[in-house]
C-alpha cells in the first residue's frame, strides 16, 4: 500500500471517537475503497479503468448541465459531472474560472441559471442553504466572534434540534478530533489562523453533512501550516468518510490531497481525473500549462494515427508521440515536462545539442534552462547523493527525452 496514514498523527484511535453512521460507509470500508483508488493512481491504466471503477459508486453530488450567468457575463458554461460518495474531490482552476460559483451553488448561496444539482439523487433546486445537508468551510473561516468555540460548533446542532446532552458530547468529540480540547471556553479572536481553521472544520463536520464544501480553506495560512493542514484534511476525510468537495487554485494542494480533480478554466471543465491522470495525460494545453511546469514547443502536425501524432518541432526533427485532441489541425503543441528531459543525454532517446543558460539550485532539485538553437528548454534534475554532477552555466551539453514521455496537444 502507498503512503497510508504515516503522515500525521490524527491516528486510528481518533476515528473511533466520531461515530459517523446514518447509512454512510463506515471507516473501515472507506479505507479499503481509498486503497483501491490509490492503487489505480499508482498502477496507472488510463481514464477508462477509473471510470469503470467509479461507475458502481454512489453519487453524492450530481452536477447536470449547470451554468451561471451574471447579467451578460457568463461565469460558468454548462458543466456536468458527478462527485462520488466518500471522495476527496477537488475543483481546481485559476481565479475567475467559476469554481467558487459552483461551490456556492452546491451550498445554496447562489442559484444556477440553468441545469440541476442533485444531492444523493434528490433535486435540491430552490432549497435554501439551511435546508441542505451540506456544510461549508469558508475561506476566512467565518467563525462567530460573539460565541465561544464550543458555541460555534454547537450552532448547527442546535438548529437541527439536537438535545443538549447529545450536542455537548458531540462538541467535545469534535474539539478532540481537531486537537483543540485545550482551548475550551475561548473565543475565535484568541486563536491563530491554523486554530481557527480547525474550529471551522469541526463546526462544519459536527452536523454530519452529506457533503463538506471547502472554499480555499488553506489560502490564508502560512506555507508550513498549509502543508500540515493538507495532511490533516486528508486524514479527516478518511476518518469521517464524508465526501469533501475542495476548491483551490493551488495545483500542488490539489495533486497532494485529491482522489479526483476537476480542472476548470474559462468557465468550463477542462479535464476530470485522478491527479496522475491530469499531470501525465493533460487533455489540452490549458491543463498541461496550469498543472505543474512544462515546455511547450510549436509543432507542425504531419500525421495523426489513432493515439499518436507525428509532428515536426523547431528543434529540427520529426517525432511521433501520444496525442490528445489534435484532430485535423495543422498546428499543435508538444509538451514535455522538465523532469522528463534527461541531462546529460541518455542513449536510445531523442537527443538535442544545447548550452546551459541558467541553473537554479533548489536543494533537492536543480532547475536548468538549456538553450538549443532558438528554443529554451526547462530541465529539472534531481540532485545526486554526492555534490558532484552539477552543471555549470555556459557549459555545452546534450539533453534527451523519450518520445513517449512527450504529448502532442491541440493548440
Amino acid at each position, binding site marked *: 500500500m502507498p503512503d497510508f496514514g504515516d503522515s500525521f498523527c490524527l491516528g486510528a484511535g481518533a476515528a473511533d471517537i466520531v461515530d459517523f453512521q446514518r447509512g454512510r460507509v463506515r471507516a473501515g470500508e472507506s479505507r479499503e475503497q481509498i486503497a483501491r483508488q490509490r492503487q489505480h493512481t499508482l498502477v496507472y491504466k488510463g481514464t477508462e479503468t477509473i471510470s469503470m471503477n467509479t461507475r458502481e459508486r454512489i453519487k453524492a453530488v450530481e452536477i447536470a448541465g449547470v451554468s451561471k450567468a451574471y447579467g451578460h457575463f457568463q461565469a460558468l458554461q454548462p458543466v456536468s459531472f458527478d462527485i462520488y460518495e466518500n471522495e476527496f474531490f477537488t475543483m481546481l482552476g485559476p481565479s475567475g474560472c467559476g469554481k467558487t460559483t459552483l461551490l456556492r451553488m452546491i451550498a445554496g*448561496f447562489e442559484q444556477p441559471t440553468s441545469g440541476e444539482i442533485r444531492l444523493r439523487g434528490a433535486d435540491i433546486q430552490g432549497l*435554501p*442553504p*439551511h435546508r441542505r445537508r451540506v456544510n461549508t468551510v469558508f475561506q*476566512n473561516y467565518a467563525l462567530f466572534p460573539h460565541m465561544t468555540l464550543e458555541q460555534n460548533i454547537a*450552532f448547527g446542532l442546535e438548529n437541527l434540534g439536537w438535545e443538549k446532552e447529545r450536542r455537548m458530547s458531540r462538541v467535545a468529540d469534535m474539539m478532540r478530533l481537531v486537537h483543540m480540547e485545550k482551548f475550551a471556553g*475561548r473565543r475565535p479572536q*484568541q486563536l491563530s489562523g491554523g486554530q481557527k481553521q480547525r474550529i471551522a472544520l469541526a463546526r462544519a463536520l459536527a452536523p454530519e453533512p452529506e457533503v463538506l464544501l471547502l472554499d480555499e480553506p488553506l489560502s490564508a495560512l502560512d506555507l508550513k501550516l498549509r502543508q500540515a493542514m493538507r495532511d490533516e484534511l486528508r486524514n479527516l476525510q478518511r476518518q469521517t468518510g464524508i465526501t469533501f468537495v475542495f476548491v483551490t487554485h493551488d495545483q500542488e494542494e490539489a495533486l497532494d490531497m485529491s482522489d479526483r480533480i476537476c480542472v476548470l478554466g474559462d468557465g468550463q471543465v477542462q479535464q476530470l481525473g485522478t491527479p496522475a491522470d491530469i499531470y501525465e495525460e493533460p487533455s489540452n494545453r490549458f491543463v498541461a500549462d496550469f498543472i505543474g511546469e512544462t515546455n511547450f514547443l510549436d509543432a507542425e502536425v504531419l500525421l495523426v494515427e489513432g493515439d499518436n501524432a507525428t509532428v515536426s518541432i523547431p528543434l529540427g526533427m520529426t517525432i511521433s508521440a501520444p496525442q490528445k485532441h489534435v484532430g485535423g489541425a495543422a498546428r499543435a503543441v508538444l509538451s514535455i515536462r522538465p523532469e522528463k528531459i534527461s541531462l546529460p543525454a541518455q542513449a536510445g532517446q531523442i537527443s538535442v545539442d544545447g548550452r546551459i543558460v541558467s541553473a537554479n539550485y533548489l536543494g533537492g532539485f536543480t532547475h536548468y534552462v538549456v538553450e538549443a538553437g532558438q528554443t529554451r528548454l526547462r530541465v529539472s534534475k534531481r540532485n545526486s547523493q554526492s555534490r558532484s554532477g552539477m552543471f555549470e552555466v555556459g557549459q555545452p551539453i546534450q539533453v534527451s527525452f523519450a518520445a513517449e514521455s512527450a504529448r502532442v496537444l491541440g493548440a
Partner: protein
Amino acid sequence: MSARRPLFGWNVLGLMPAHVIMLLTLIVPVGIIILVSFSTRGPYGGFDYIFTIAPYRQILFNEGWTGELEFNPQYLIVVGRTLLLALATTAICLACSFPVAYFISLQSRERKVALIYLVTLPFWVSMIVRVYSWIIILGNNGVVAKALLALGLPDIGSLLFTDTAMLIGLVYSYIPLMILPIFASIEKLDPALVEASHDLYGSRFTTLRRVILPLCAPGMLAGAILVFVPCLGAVLEPTLLGGGKAMMMGNLIQLQFGAARNWPLGAAISIVLMASVLIFLTVRGLSAVRREGREAAR
C-alpha cells in the same frame, strides 16, 4: 491596562491647547453652574453669592412661611416623566431604526449614499421649524385628527400638548442618531457570518436573532446613548408640543432661568440632570470595562 500618564507637566506641553479648551468650555462653565446652584436667589433674577443648599432642598420640598418643610412632588414628577419619555423614545427609535438601517445596508452603493443622505437631511433644517411643523400636524384641525375622522374613528380631538405629542416629537428629532450607528455596525458585519449561519441550518429568524442582532449590539448601544442623553435635556419638544402643561427637565430648567427668575433652582436641576447622565454612562462604562477584563483574563 496601560500605565497611568500624568495629565499635566512638561511632557504633555504639546497637549496644552486641548487642556485650555477643556478648561474654558467644560470645567469653568460647570464650575459656575455649581456655584450658582449653591447661591441665593436674587430679587429680580440673577443670584447673590450667599451659600445655601436651599435650591436643592427646593427640588423636593416646599418651604413654608415659618420655615417648615412640606414634601412637594411636582419636580419629581417632571424628572420621572423625563426619564420615562427618554426611555420610551429610545425604545421606539431602537425598534424602528434596525429595520431601516438593515434595509439601507442591503441597497446598492449609490442608493446607500442617497438614503443615508436622506436620513441626515432633517439636520440641515432648523430644529425649531421642524418641531413647529408637528404642531400643525397634531393640532386641532391637523392632519392626524382629520385623517382619523375621515376613517370614521372617534374624534380624539387634539393630540397637541400631551405626553404623546412630546414622544412623537422626540422620536422624530432623534431617530437619525439611532439609525446612523446601527447602519455602521451592520455595514461592518461580515456577510460570510450570515452565510455561515444559513449554512449551519439557521433559518432567517435564527440568523437574525443569534448572529445579526448580537453583532450589531455595539451600534445599538451607541445609538441608545446618543438618543437617550439628549432626550433627557430636550427643550424644544416639551416647550412646543407639551405646551408648558406637561414639562420635561429641559424646559423646566429653561423656565427657571427665564420667566421664573430662579437661577439657583435652575442650576440645581441642571446639576441633578448632569449627575444622572454621568451615573448612567459610568455604570455602562464600568460594565463594559469589567466585561473586557473578563475576556482578557481568559
